[in-house]
């Protein structure tokens, strides 16, 4: 494959020239890239908000902002990070980039719908930004929009809610697209048993997106209507029920956390076999556990409500179901680890991020168990332990998976390789800083510091300071990582088709892939996604 370094694949080939070629494209790769850019931008903004939060919490009393600003900050941070960063991150960015290639298709089932979903995302993002500067001020409800506060506060909640609504719509469209694509466009020989696990997880995720997201849609609409008409839907005096709102919210938002992690698990299931040069252990267990997580994940939402005044019977049921979800995740972890057994392991940057994922996700997930048990959750609920938990799973899990994916696949799509040494340094700082930050946060949570507190009693000072310092280490790591990727992907050494020696379809086509991915005739698959026999990594 002697591609001269001037070859640029889908970056150049396009029915329309210039910027329109991007804004009006229906090419899944271009849409994926556009998503990726927005998501990174969101992450950087949200992350800096996170830094600001930590800075305020470095010591008791007022450090850099007053209470109201603080509330606005973590609300914004939460909304950005969940609705605009993590939920679309891997599915919308890398899913779009890879899903069709992985199943040997030329594009998704509904390319135009795909573009529309990106525009919905942009509209949502725009509204979110507007919500900051317009109306009664930046929303201060937390990303959970709990009533009655969210219907009473004077800040601009309606617009934020509508923004989230649009983002949800975009996510639904992606979901519809992926489910249909997987069912209809698998190429010749691409049996269900030969799909890469990344596709399996995206498929499971897509079902959640389709079946759960509308629930948040209606919930947010109800908040807006409530603020407009003051009808009292959730007001006990007028026949409403504040706790019922929480049900509606979590019916979506718990499954949503699996939207955030499942694709990440898919990425890890691609990276680990490649760098162990060994078939993924227990393919079907992994595939089915993805579906199991997707299904069981939609049965457990009320574990966020143990202290809300919900009935004890419900607590019994939901606590039980919550522990059931943990099992498929356990299966996955064990299979990843045993894939390493007797492999030939290379610690390339993507692999490092993948291993970090397993460690972080294990900590976060096991923390989830303490939250799932009724008695212990009563103490831990709404403390910074919960905050630690979800940063471990969302950032240490979802986030690290995204970074793994970036280091693993972006060279494919730019045709250039970043500097490995720098990447490893960045990884080290990030990993260490991350664990300092959130370990301390969990510890202070166990001591009883409530979350969403801009000020706290002196006992909590030391650990908060540690946590803040940790966030700086993490920041440095992240900056190095981003800069390194950016430079490498623009000026790095050109690579051939298959730098890692991986066995899935995307590595059998030029990098960057051409428009429509495959040559004139469609590919025909004859072997599983992890059969490395005879696959050689080409030098770069």
């Amino acid at each position, binding site marked *: 494959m002697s591609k001269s370094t001037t070859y640029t694949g889908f970056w150049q080939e396009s*029915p329309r020239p210039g910027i329109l070629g991007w804004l009006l494209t*229906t*090419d899944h790769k271009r849409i994926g890239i556009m998503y990726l850019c927005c998501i990174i931008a969101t992450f950087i903004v949200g992350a800096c908000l996170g830094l600001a939060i930590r800075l305020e919490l470095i010591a008791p009393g007022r450090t850099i902002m007053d209470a109201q600003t603080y509330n606005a900050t973590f609300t914004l941070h939460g909304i950005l990070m969940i609705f605009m960063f993590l939920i679309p991150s891997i599915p919308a960015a890398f899913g779009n980039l890879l899903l069709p290639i992985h199943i040997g298709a*030329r*594009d998704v*089932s*509904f*390319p135009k*719908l795909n573009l529309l979903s990106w525009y919905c995302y942009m509209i949502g993002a725009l509204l979110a930004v507007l919500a900051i500067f317009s109306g009664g001020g930046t929303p201060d409800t937390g990303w959970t929009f709990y009533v009655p506060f969210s219907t009473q506060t004077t800040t601009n909640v309606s617009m934020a809610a509508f923004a989230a609504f649009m983002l949800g719509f975009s996510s*639904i469209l992606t*979901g*519809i*697209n992926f*489910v*249909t694509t997987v*069912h*209809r*466009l698998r190429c010749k020989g691409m049996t269900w048993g030969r799909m890469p696990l990344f596709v399996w997880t995206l498929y499971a995720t897509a079902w959640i997106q*389709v*079946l*759960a*997201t*509308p*629930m948040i*849609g*209606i*919930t947010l*609409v*109800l908040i807006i*209507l409530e603020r407009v*008409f*003051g*009808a*009292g*839907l959730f007001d*006990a*005096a*007028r*026949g*409403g*029920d504040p706790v*019922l709102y929480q*049900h*509606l919210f979590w019916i979506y938002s718990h499954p949503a956390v699996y939207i955030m992690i499942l694709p990440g698990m898919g990425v890890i299931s691609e990276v680990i076999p490649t760098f162990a040069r060994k078939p993924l252990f227990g393919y079907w267990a992994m595939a089915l556990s993805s579906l199991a997580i997707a299904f069981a994940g939609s049965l457990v939402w009320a574990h966020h409500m143990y202290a809300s005044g919900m009935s004890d019977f419900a607590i019994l049921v939901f606590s039980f179901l919550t522990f059931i979800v943990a099992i498929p995740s356990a299966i996955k972890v064990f299979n990843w680890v045993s894939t390493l057994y007797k492999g030939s392991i290379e610690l390339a940057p993507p692999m490092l991020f993948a291993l970090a994922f397993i460690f972080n996700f294990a900590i976060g997930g096991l923390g989830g168990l303490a939250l799932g048990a009724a008695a212990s959750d009563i103490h831990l609920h709404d403390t910074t332990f919960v905050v630690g938990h979800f940063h471990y799973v969302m950032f240490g899990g979802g986030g690290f998976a995204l970074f793994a994916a970036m280091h693993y696949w972006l060279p494919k799509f730019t045709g250039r390789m970043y500097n490995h040494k720098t990447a490893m340094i960045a990884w080290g700082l990030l990993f260490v800083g991350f664990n300092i930050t959130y370990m301390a946060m969990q510890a202070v949570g166990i001591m009883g510091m409530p979350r969403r507190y801009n000020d706290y009693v002196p006992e909590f000072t030391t650990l908060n300071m540690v946590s803040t310092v940790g966030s700086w280490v993490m920041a440095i790591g992240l900056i190095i990582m981003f800069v390194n990727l950016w430079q490498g992907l623009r000026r790095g050494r050109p690579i051939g088709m298959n730098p890692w020696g991986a066995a899935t379809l995307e590595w059998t086509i030029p990098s960057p892939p051409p428009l*429509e991915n495959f040559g004139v005739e469609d590919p025909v698959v004859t072997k599983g996604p992890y059969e490395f026999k005879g696959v050689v990594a080409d030098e770069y």
Partner: protein
Amino acid sequence: MSIEHRDDTGDRFGMWLFLYTEVILFSGLFILYAVSLSKFPEQFSEASHKLNIYFGTINTLVLLTSSLTIALALSALQMGRKKQCLILCWTTIGLAIVFLINKYFEWSAEIGHGIYPGSEQLAEMGPGVAAFFNLYYFTAGLHGLHVFIGATLIAVVAVMTAKDKVTSERFTLLENSALYWHLVDLVWIFVFPLYYLIL
């Protein structure tokens, strides 16, 4: 030169997936309904007496019939009877308009009685009644919106049919908008008894 692969089944399946999301969307309101009903059964039946059952019934008939016409329209097109198909499409739209006009009168009557979300009177009628009418307005409102969207879709498709963009060979667009319209009908099939008929 975008990829010209045609997959009608795929397109239909996509539409069905979208319909699932619509069902879940409405189900949110139905959950609220179910919970409030189990809390205030008497007040609910009391409240539903305040609704005008004739409006409800007429609208039910209208929607059922429109469902029939759009279904027929599809068969007509498949059998290549373009003219009939167009007539049936426009009938469907006509019925949709009838439905909305009906709603308009019904609502203005109730609002005339000071019954609307957030009104003082409603608040005084007791929590159950208030909950009932809030939900009634929001559900019916959302449904009305869907009627509007569905009608628009069908109109567009009708025009395309007239221009032979949609033909007896390529009718997925008509089929999908018909599917959407049937969903609108389905939702009403549940709204009607739940809001107008509980005693």
